């Protein structure tokens, strides 16, 4: 069960296991964002779950087409912000009023008003760092190794190409049938991605 959970979490990061035959998945190219969006919708409706689209920029409406909910990054931000706020309050109170109380023009050792700037700054600082770290963690990045990089064609994904990748780990995956379905959806250039540690020669 733990293995299944790990697999699901990794799938949410777009990381999939290759099968025994070293097949990682099928990579299909689509002509433009419109086609990719429709293909993603169709693939989801066909019951696939381990799939992802790859594009040079985020495509409006793709989350819905792929059946993905709202990102949970916001909760991590909130956690960071609350940590920062509490830390700043505790720090200023303890350092100024408990450990090293020093009388400056008869001002109180601790008061909320002069503590606000630092409370605010540390809230923003920790919330921002948590957001960045949380985003990378939820995405499973950094990920230096990715079988998709074996595809020469895939290098254009950060330029002007639009891809749909169906992972072999999906229960519905069948190399021939799935490839056929992708072609029917208008894909050009459907290729099988192998997770065997060697770059494709073609």
């Amino acid at each position, binding site marked *: 069960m733990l293995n299944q959970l790990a697999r699901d979490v990794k799938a949410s*990061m777009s990381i999939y296991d290759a099968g025994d035959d070293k097949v990682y998945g099928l990579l299909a190219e689509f002509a433009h964002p419109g086609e990719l969006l*429709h293909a993603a919708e169709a693939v989801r409706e066909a019951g696939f779950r381990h799939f*992802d689209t790859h594009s040079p920029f985020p495509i409006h409406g*793709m989350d819905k087409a792929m059946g*993905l909910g709202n*990102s949970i990054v916001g909760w991590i931000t909130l956690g960071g912000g609350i940590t920062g706020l509490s830390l700043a309050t505790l720090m200023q109170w303890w*350092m100024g009023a408990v450990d090293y109380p020093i009388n400056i023009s008869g001002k109180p050792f601790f008061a909320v008003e002069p503590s606000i700037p630092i409370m605010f*700054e540390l809230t*923003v600082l920790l919330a921002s760092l948590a957001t960045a770290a949380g985003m990378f963690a939820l995405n499973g990045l950094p990920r230096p*190794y990715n079988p998709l990089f074996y595809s020469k064609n895939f290098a254009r994904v950060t330029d002007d190409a639009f891809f749909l990748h169906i992972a072999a780990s999906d229960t519905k995956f069948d190399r021939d049938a799935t490839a056929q379905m992708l072609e029917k959806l208008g894909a050009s250039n459907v290729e099988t991605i192998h997770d065997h540690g060697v770059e494709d020669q073609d």
Partner: protein
Amino acid sequence: MSTASTDKTLAHLADFHDEAPLVKGNLTFHDITEIVSSHTEKKTPFAWYGAFSLALAGLMLLVGMIAYLFWNGTGVWGLNNPVGWGYAIVNFVFWVGIGHAGTLISAILFLFRQQWRTAINRSAEAMTIFAVICALVFPTIHVGRVWAIYWTLPLPNQMNMWPQFKSPLLWDVFAVSTYFTVSLVFWYIGLVPDLASMRDRAKGKLRKLVLGVASMGWTGANRHWRNYEKAYLLLAALATPLVLSVHSVVSFDFAVSIVPGWHTTIFPPYFVAGAIFSGFAMVVTLLVIARKIYGVENIITVDHLEKMNIIILLTGTMVGFAYITEFFIAWYSGVQYEQYAFVNRMFGPYAWAYWTMMSCNLFFPQFFWFKKLRRNITFMFIISIFVNIGMWFERFVITVTSLHRDYLPSSWDYYTPTAVDVLTFVGTFGLFFTLFLLFLRFMPMVAVAEVKGIMPEADPHFYDHEGDGHHAEHAVEPSTQQ
């Protein structure tokens, strides 16, 4: 984009703007990647070496001046008894202020869905980071005993002492360092997809490796974009109050004191407006040159520059209004010292600085009421230089004129900077341009993924007929050929 498709697709995109296309010259997605990335790949142009040597010489000058200062102490500066804050604070506020435009463009305009920002946000954010680095130099060297600068941080130490949290100067430490860190994180997150773009084009093995590490294995997966876009939005939402707070905290350094001319509640908003004003002027100065040299005029168009000039006009007028309000309040307060401080600014020994500030900040930007002038590249360049000068003088006027004559006439004095003061300031331009030139040389100067994302072709419905899911016959296929 063909003209036939323009009306329809723009009507489709007209949620937030109803203007001419932001990217000019019928560029495809691939063209954008090519234009921006190729500059970092080609052989270094000779002119770059020329500019870089000059900037590096400036940086060496800064290092030399700082070494001289450390060896001799702050006595080498022109500070005297009433004027304990001179060039160092003026320069600090000047550079921090410049940084603010970058965050405004990247965060606030993002929240307001101003899509034109995508063309300029990368370079403006870079400018922010480099300007804040220049700013941080000054308080650090101004403490006199630089080896004790770590006392400003709440670090456990053998003296069993903690920093004094009631001091605005300490708030500054937190505000500016938070600002720097958050700007850097925001900038890096924006860079990741573009670094991946460069990685996928890289020829050399080393280049591929370095870019591969820096881009973290980005593949443009939608599962990643989903978290990425959310994080970007949240960072923008966090950076927005942050940028407003930073210059407010900087203004507290002055406003919380009881020096006439400083002790005013108008300072925080007035400082923030001034910061945005000066920052936009610097963005215009830099981009007018960079877009020409780098041939990105179709991405950073005159429309973009015009919009920035409108912001300069707006914030310049706000700053001018603040100058006049200050004056009125000083008179209305009935406090003799306050009144004197302002009369002294206008007609005292520093009147030359005051009128330089007034003319550069309030008068010259008014030319931007004329559309012809604010779309004229040469003219806007000249005005932006004037604004940079004017805003430096604003900080000079605030700092020096208030200090040099406060309460007791017996302690009045005149402040003159020394050569070390001036050369240290000149040196920070060396630091700034060294970093900026390295950025232009090695980094994508335009946010490629974001620019692509706002093109009409990026909208999946660009390719639809009215809702029947078929391709429109007039739709332009993005170039997929290699």
